[in-house]
């Protein structure tokens, strides 16, 4: 009995040892914090040239004969993000691989939303394709196949047998906004349904619960700012938060804006935003500070548990943050947004 347990543990340690080592190396090729200052001083074309000397080279080279400008950049960023995530799955095995795969289903939801939305509003296929990050169960080719169906109904029918179908059936009868929120809720509910059999699954679940907290508090603040009603808020609350559970969300949804602001003090992320709240900063800035804090929390946790799923999750988040930062800088530069206004939107850790 004891020996079996030991063997199990050993296997897991070996799984994690390999992926952790690989992720450690991959993290080194992320754009370092102080490089952003340089990027902020560059023109759009210089940014593209800069990225051609980084891990984005392959995608930019591949796309540059067909695309230019911001389309080239955004497409390349999506392709690279996708390739990176898929590599992560490829080089992992066992439980970590299963957990990463589950977490990356986030992109299935995202891509399905883009297809439905894009088709409903008559966007050209080309443009919808460019938004794909085929890093979940549905790879790029699967998504293109899904997109090639004639109508939205055809797409929805093709998803029969998946958990998404139940929600998507209501496209046309329910507002699209509600359908999108339900897809996102489904993603988190499914993740949180994983049974916490072992320590590493528990790490993942705790991580997800905290992510849900951040999603929930952002939802509450955004809807409160627009005088959203209790029901409107509760519709978009994800169950299973770490501190902001459904019950806690109910309390907050019933409060006035000022009460909510005071109430924030009791949550784990309060330190991240306390000053900005006092300054009366806009919500997008609070979001940036929450995201920064989230990154730092995940990094420090993963440093405590280097042989766990946490370093991999940290990398997944940091990579996403990097592509978002690059998108903001590039678009901002192209459309003449002042440096300071770009900078305050970046999540630099």
């Amino acid at each position, binding site marked *: 009995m004891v020996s079996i347990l030991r063997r199990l543990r050993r296997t897991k340690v070996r799984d994690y040892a390999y992926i952790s080592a690989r992720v450690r190396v991959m993290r080194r090729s992320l754009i370092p914090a102080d490089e952003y200052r340089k990027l902020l001083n560059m023109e759009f074309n210089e940014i593209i040239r800069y990225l051609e000397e980084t891990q984005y080279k392959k995608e930019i080279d591949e796309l540059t004969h067909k695309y230019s400008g911001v389309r080239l950049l955004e497409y390349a960023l999506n392709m690279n993000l996708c390739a990176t995530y898929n590599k992560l799955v490829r080089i992992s095995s066992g439980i970590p691989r299963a957990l990463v795969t589950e977490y990356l289903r986030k992109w299935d939801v*995202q891509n399905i939303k883009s297809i439905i939305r894009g088709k409903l509003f008559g966007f050209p296929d080309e443009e*919808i394709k460019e938004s794909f990050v085929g890093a979940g169960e549905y790879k790029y080719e699967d998504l293109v196949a899904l997109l090639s169906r004639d109508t939205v109904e055809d797409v929805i029918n093709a998803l029969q047998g998946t958990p998404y179908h139940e929600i998507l059936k209501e496209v046309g009868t329910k507002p699209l*906004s509600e359908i*999108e929120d339900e897809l*996102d*809720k489904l993603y988190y509910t499914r993740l949180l349904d994983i049974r916490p059999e072992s320590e590493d699954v528990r790490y993942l679940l705790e991580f997800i619960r905290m992510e849900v907290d951040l999603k929930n508090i952002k939802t509450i603040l955004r809807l409160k*700012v627009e005088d959203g009603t209790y029901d409107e808020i509760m519709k978009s609350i994800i169950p299973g938060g770490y501190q902001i559970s459904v019950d806690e969300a109910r309390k907050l949804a019933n409060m006035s804006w000022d009460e909510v602001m005071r109430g924030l003090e009791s949550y784990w992320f309060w330190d991240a935003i306390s000053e900005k709240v006092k300054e009366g900063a806009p919500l997008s800035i609070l979001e940036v500070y929450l995201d920064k804090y989230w990154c730092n929390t995940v990094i420090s946790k993963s440093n405590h548990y280097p042989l766990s799923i946490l370093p991999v999750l940290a990398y997944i988040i940091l990579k996403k943050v990097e592509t978002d930062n690059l998108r*903001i800088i590039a678009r901002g530069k192209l*459309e003449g947004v002042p440096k300071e206004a770009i900078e305050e939107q970046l999540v630099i850790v």
Partner: protein
Amino acid sequence: MAIDVKPTRSELIKLKRRIKLSEKGYELLKMKRDGLIMEFSETLSMARGVLEKLRESYENAEQKISIAKAIDGTIMVRSAALAAKSEPEFELRSKNIMGVVVPVVKRKRVRKKLSEREYGIIGTTARIDEATSAYEELIDAILEAAEIETTLLRLLEEIERTKRRVNALEFKVIPEMKEAKKYIEFALQEMERDNIIRLKKIKAKAEA
């Protein structure tokens, strides 16, 4: 100058009354013109601030939508725009500055029904919300700019009209009436002289 008046005493009295009235009107119109010009330059100094605010609102709105496109994605932002249901409601009032009527358009501040929000909240960020409200603020700034521009133009028109009337009174109407008055006075004097001469002649004849 064609003067078409009957040189009678009653005509002279009428004319004198009209000159007095015109001179009074002239003074009043001059006062109105000065008032309008003062109002105009005050509005003009306000216009500078309003246009500055318009510039700032536009820059802010453009920045906000750029960031929203970067993070929430162009498909999201553009489809949300295509689907936006809650058209802003406007209300029309008017203001009156020294008889100049200017329409005032204001955006009604109604709470948007969140059910009309065309994008899921969990999968988006506050950037798209802020881009929307930045454009609503821009619309307010545009309405203000339109109001002040209309005010300036209508004041200018009124100033022009008043100036023309002042000038007409000063250089045409009043001088012409004064000319006419002089003519009647002259004619009446002439007639009086003629009468005296005639009377003298009659007297001389009678004495002869």
